[in-house]
């Protein structure tokens, strides 16, 4: 046996393994990044065509033509290979995005389950929470609310908890899919925000300010309500009222130069 005691052999093997694991993880991360980039490009093109599609049939054709098989199997493979790491979480986020884009509800649900089930501690839950409400498809409201409740309960990160609180309150309060139950849940969440973040900074304003604004939206700015009238000056200095446009379909766009 000489100098090669079992302990030294084991230590050497562990050392070699520790070199191998980061290299493999790096390969997965690189593969993932390439997929994310390609998906962003394909998605942009898809949305461009989707906007021009005039009928549900045309839109369905577009969805069928999307190169889904270039993404989903590869992303799932990365998620499996990198299981338990943020690389896997990002991969599942990628699968979620495919599901959202192509209205594949089962795929969306599966990815969401993996995300909140296996990655609740991750800082990526902040990204997930945003994606669930920002530019999210209308049909995803219920699974999104479930996921936000889980994130809220499980995340160890205070800022992610605050974001989830805010997003969940607005989601269940505003979306008619949740009915009166949703509005009651929203009110509970808003009361909690006032209690825990009343005068403190809460996603860029005080908790009290956020709660006041959210309540206003939930009671006055719902789908089905007449939009509150306003008077304003336009870019030429001319005064006008929103109600001047009765008789026309109006798309109101709150925006800014960035």
């Amino acid at each position, binding site marked *: 046996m000489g100098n090669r005691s079992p302990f030294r052999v084991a230590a050497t093997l562990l050392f070699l393994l520790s070199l191998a694991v980061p290299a493999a993880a790096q390969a997965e991360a690189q593969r993932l990044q390439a997929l994310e980039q390609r998906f962003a490009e394909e998605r942009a093109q898809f*949305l461009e065509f*989707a*906007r021009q*599609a005039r009928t549900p049939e045309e*839109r369905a054709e577009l969805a069928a033509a999307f190169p889904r098989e270039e993404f989903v199997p590869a992303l799932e493979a990365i998620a499996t290979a990198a299981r338990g790491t943020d690389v896997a979480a990002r991969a599942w986020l990628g699968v979620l995005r495919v599901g959202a884009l192509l209205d594949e509800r089962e795929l969306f649900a599966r990815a969401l389950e993996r995300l909140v089930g296996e990655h609740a501690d991750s800082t990526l839950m902040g990204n997930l929470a945003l994606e669930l*409400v*920002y*530019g*999210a*498809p*209308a049909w995803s409201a219920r699974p999104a609310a479930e996921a936000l409740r889980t994130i809220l309960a499980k995340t160890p990160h205070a800022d992610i908890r605050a974001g989830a609180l805010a997003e969940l309150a607005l989601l269940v309060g*505003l979306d008619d899919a949740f009915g009166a139950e949703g509005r009651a849940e929203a009110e509970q969440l808003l009361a909690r925000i006032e209690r825990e973040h009343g005068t403190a900074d809460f*996603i*860029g*304003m005080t908790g009290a300010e*956020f709660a006041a*604004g*959210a309540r*206003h*939206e939930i009671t006055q*700015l*719902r*789908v*089905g*309500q*007449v*939009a*509150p*009238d*306003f008077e*304003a*000056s*336009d*870019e030429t200095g001319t005064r*006008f009222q*929103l*109600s001047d*446009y*009765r*008789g*026309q*379909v*109006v*798309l*109101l*766009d*709150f*925006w*800014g*130069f*960035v």
Partner: protein
Amino acid sequence: MGLLPQKKALVERLEDEPFRFLGVLGREGDPADFRARLKQHGITWRNALDLGEPADGVLWARWAVRGFPQFYLLDASGVIRQRWFGDPGAELEPAIEALLAEARAAAK
């Protein structure tokens, strides 16, 4: 500004329809020389300016707007029919078409 090409295409396509695209320009980003910048970007549609005296930020506050893009789609009776936080993607145009069809049917 990312959605600007889509907005322009929308306004152009629906020029002859009972449709109005109405911007509410807030303080996000730099509001300086907004008139010149609107022109520079080829923004031909009306924008309510929620900037400066006496109304600074009033509209954004009244509509509880915390970030943008934030869209509200109103029908011909002024009723809120849909709202989006973020890019509406493929949902926007079908929603507008449906309301235009409604308006046409009501006019008959």
